[in-house]
């Protein structure tokens, strides 16, 4: 009798999960619950195109958050990211590279595109900007800590994240100029 009851509960839960279509849950989606790609936010890229984080699923990603007006740490983190991308074998469809701006106040498709040109970023890299709420949620999901100063600059953690094709954080490289070897090894193990 107890067994039947338990089974009924299990089945009814499985059943109701399939019928769930609340705004935040995607029961039908194959994405794991901890996937960054579960975030619903919409972003504008350097070409003015709109994407949703969900659209990024399917390829592993190298991800950083920075702001393009930054003149001290960001050129260094971009240089670091270029080396990591090269060593990891980043290429369209294989490992994508995405830069998300922390600066929802001043970033635009134009400033992103100017940054990509100035830093000579490979054309397949994606640069994205969105509103303050979307930035806060993505940063919180990744674990990026940041603070906007009154002059419009940001203090922020410098971390390169590697997400698998389902949007789960597999490994991360903390700090500018820290050794790449272990990070690259972890990436290659998880492609």
């Amino acid at each position: 009798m107890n067994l039947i009851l338990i089974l009924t509960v299990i089945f009814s839960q499985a059943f109701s999960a399939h019928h769930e279509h609340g705004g935040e849950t995607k029961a039908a989606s194959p994405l794991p619950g901890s996937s960054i790609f579960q975030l619903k936010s919409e972003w504008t890229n350097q070409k003015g195109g709109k994407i949703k984080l969900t659209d990024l699923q399917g390829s592993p990603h190298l991800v950083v958050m920075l702001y393009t007006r930054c003149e001290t740490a960001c050129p260094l983190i971009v240089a670091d990211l270029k080396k990591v991308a090269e060593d990891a074998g980043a290429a369209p469809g294989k490992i994508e590279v995405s830069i998300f701006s922390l600066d929802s106040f001043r970033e635009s498709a134009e400033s992103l595109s100017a940054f990509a040109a100035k830093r000579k970023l490979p054309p397949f890299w994606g640069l994205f900007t969105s509103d303050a709420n979307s930035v806060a949620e993505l940063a919180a999901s990744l674990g990026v800590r940041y603070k906007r100063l009154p002059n419009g600059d940001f203090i922020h953690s410098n971390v390169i994240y590697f997400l698998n094709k389902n949007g789960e954080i597999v490994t991360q490289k903390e700090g500018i100029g820290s050794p790449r070897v272990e990070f690259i090894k972890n990436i290659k193990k998880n492609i």
Partner: protein
Amino acid sequence: MKLIALIFFLTYTSIVLGKEVEVPKTIYVPVFKDPGDVDIEIGPILIDETPVTNKEFLKFVKKNPQFARSKILRLYADNNYLSHWISDTLLKKNEQELPVTYVSWFIARKYCAAQGKRLPTIAEWEVASDAQNPTFNDKILNWYAKPGSDLRKVGAEPGNKFGVKDAHGLIWEWVDNFSETIMSGDSRGGSSTDSLFCGGASLKAKDPRLYATFMRFAFRSSLNAKYSLPNLGFRCVKDKGVVK
């Protein structure tokens, strides 16, 4: 008759909707400044008189079943989320009026947004809680010294100069921009306790008032948006005069 109706209405709304108190426009002077930091003007805001209770949070979960304990995405909360409840929608009777705890930053934000409100900023919370008032020193430090003390009903003690209750001595509270608190150069380096103790050693706080504030900042710097902790709850605010 009209008066009775009015009194009834006021009592009813304060019970059902939760009472808010006003914090006027105030200049907040940060105790710990990063280079480039300046004083911040906050308010006027309306802030919840008391932290959000289990009962209030249950109402929200019933309306938004995707935030129930068994349905919540791991992205939004760790597996301690609402773990003190009997089930997805069942509370122990004596927990109804206790502040809700075991809630993550993500869901605290969503709760406030659902009420047309938001989480307070660090500056707003520090001002509204009157945390720099020296008369609270002993209370704050005594409480910080006893981690995991039992929770009690919200609103049991008199409010501070704004009428804000339970700001000290009951729970820690989420603030919207907790991640701004970066105690060490790279907050991701080492565990949260490492950075807490490194910070503690380097600060050499002799002023107990500074020490209490430091404890709050160290605590915030150790948080992650998914954390759902036994003594961490929240309350909401809205800008005064803004109707959403």
